[in-house]
């Protein structure tokens, strides 16, 4: 069965998650942004490429929970011989759970939903674009800078999409700033 999920459905899930999260009394709450260069590995059985994107996120943190909206756009394409692949856009919603908020190095579990657009160009084949969407999951690590506690260095490893013959994996390394 093929399920077409549009952005409004993403917001529906986001709302459901938000209700679940915000229903609990909060000891800490605040908004934040994330800016990071990222690499998305397009992996198939015959080969793979690793185009780069700029990863921008805006999120809301409440205790051990975070809710993020991510938008990514192309930074560099990547080639396998004459096949050029690029990722013009990525749209995701992520829920992050940190089981130990007081730890200096925070390990977070990530669950969400992503739409990844891939553009491909090959000899004798018209340039084509396709969007792959599905459940995303992964882990994140972050540590606050001692000089600027609101600024956190972070690394995310996320399986953006796992299909029958195609995997999309994100490696994002950047900073998060809490307001």
């Amino acid at each position: 069965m093929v399920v077409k999920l549009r952005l409004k459905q993403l917001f529906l899930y986001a709302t459901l998650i938000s209700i679940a999260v915000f229903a609990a009394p909060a000891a800490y709450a605040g908004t934040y942004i994330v800016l990071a260069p990222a690499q998305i590995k397009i992996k198939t059985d015959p080969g793979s490429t690793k185009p780069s994107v700029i990863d921008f996120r805006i999120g809301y943190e409440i205790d051990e929970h975070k809710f993020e909206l991510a938008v990514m756009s192309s930074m560099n394409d990547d080639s396998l011989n004459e096949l050029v692949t690029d990722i013009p856009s990525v749209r995701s919603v992520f829920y992050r759970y940190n089981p130990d908020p007081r730890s200096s190095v925070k390990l977070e579990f990530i669950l969400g939903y992503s739409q990844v657009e891939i553009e491909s160009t090959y000899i004798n084949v018209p340039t084509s674009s396709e969007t792959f969407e599905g459940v995303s999951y992964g882990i994140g690590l972050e540590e606050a800078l001692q000089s600027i506690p609101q600024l956190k260095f972070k690394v995310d490893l996320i399986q953006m999409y796992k299909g029958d013959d195609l995997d999309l994996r994100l490696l994002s390394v950047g900073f998060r700033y809490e307001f």
Partner: protein
Amino acid sequence: MNFKSAYRFLVCAFMLLLTACGDAEKEAPLVDLFAAASLDIIAIDFPAEANEAIISVDAFFDYTIEGLSSNGVDSVPVTSNVTWSLSDGAVSSIDENGRLSAGSVAEQITITATVGHLIDTFDVRISAAKFDQVVMLNSTALTINMCTAQQIIPIGNYINDDGSPDERRPVDSRIINTIKWLIRNAEDDTSSQRAFIKTENNIANLQALQTGDVIIQAHAPSDSQDGMLVTSVDFNQTLDNNLNSIKICRSTDTNLDTCTLTNKDVVENNVVSLMAVGNYQQTDGSTSSQNISAYSKWGTSNIASATIAFSADLQQLNVTGKLNDTTTDVSVACGNVEQNIADADIEIGVVLDVPVTCANGNLNCLQKSETMSVISEVLTAITVTANGLALEDSIARVFTTRPASIKLEVTADFSNSPSRDVTEGATYTNRSAEVITKKTDTVGEYTVQSTGNNVEVFVEFQNQNFTVKITLPN
């Protein structure tokens, strides 16, 4: 971790996972591009010279495709990422390697090869025509030099039951392995050792062992004549010379034009691999060198000093040193040598216990001989283990448990050959007879007595000593 929040997290995760669904159809165009790009090809086709358009019923054929490289010029063989299929309704079948197994009925089929988004087709007729006899040695005229080999594609005549015109095509997989090849010298019609045709894995190779003219006949069972053996017409074939020189090199040498055998030592009980390199004159005036070991004749002057034998693929000659401080002449010749060669040796490779030589003035034979010296191994040290545990010379190794027996294993290290187990060849002197006693049936193994703690055994191999010391618990 808060149980309530973890529960919420799991509920949400489950809800999202419900919507997860891979979409192979949507992924296919991108995955196909990767399949073609990984091979760096932009088109595929069935090369006509390597594929058959007519196959006999119940026979098989291995189809191949090649790809046009992305530079638009080069052709490359394609063996991976290929999907093979046959037209609907075909009785025949094709496997993942492109092997078409023809069914038992005549039919017209189309083979489709797919590599990613690249597709090509090839029409094949499965024919019920029956093999009659071989009518051509090869689809094209052959030019071959002595001490080289070439694949031949024998052409057979196939007869239709319905009286339709006969077919002439390469003999199929059922027939080619059954052909007995008869080769005679053209000038006197006697049985010839100038050439040999070897068929392996449905591929027939003509091996030219000498120069001269030969007559070749194919002797094969004819389907059209109820399996009766039918001998083909004579096929005349010239075996050219064009051999400028022959030399012996190490099989590990890669530059065949410049290689020479500088190190002629063979360590006793060790193997040195050699190859014969022939330098041939080309029609354009250039020369080229190639390994002609398999089709040359080898000999040795002293088998007590060193023995010689072909490797399994006949591409190298292995010389094994037997008696140190002796020499042997390893000789190789291409052409009609002076020695008598058994017909059976022609098929498996000629290796004689005597030197091979060419008669004086024989322009159709070239030879080369190298004197190999058998040298002794240089022993540098021996090491000993006890029940698998490494020991140090004259330093006691403390065992934490008292074993029922102790088994010593001795390894000798050589500076000019690999280390090897010499347990059988070493001598042992038990200096602790009250603690251990030698077993009679095995070398280097001792039974541990019920009392006594300090084991000492003196081990000697070729003037190298090692004192084993072991401290046993009570």
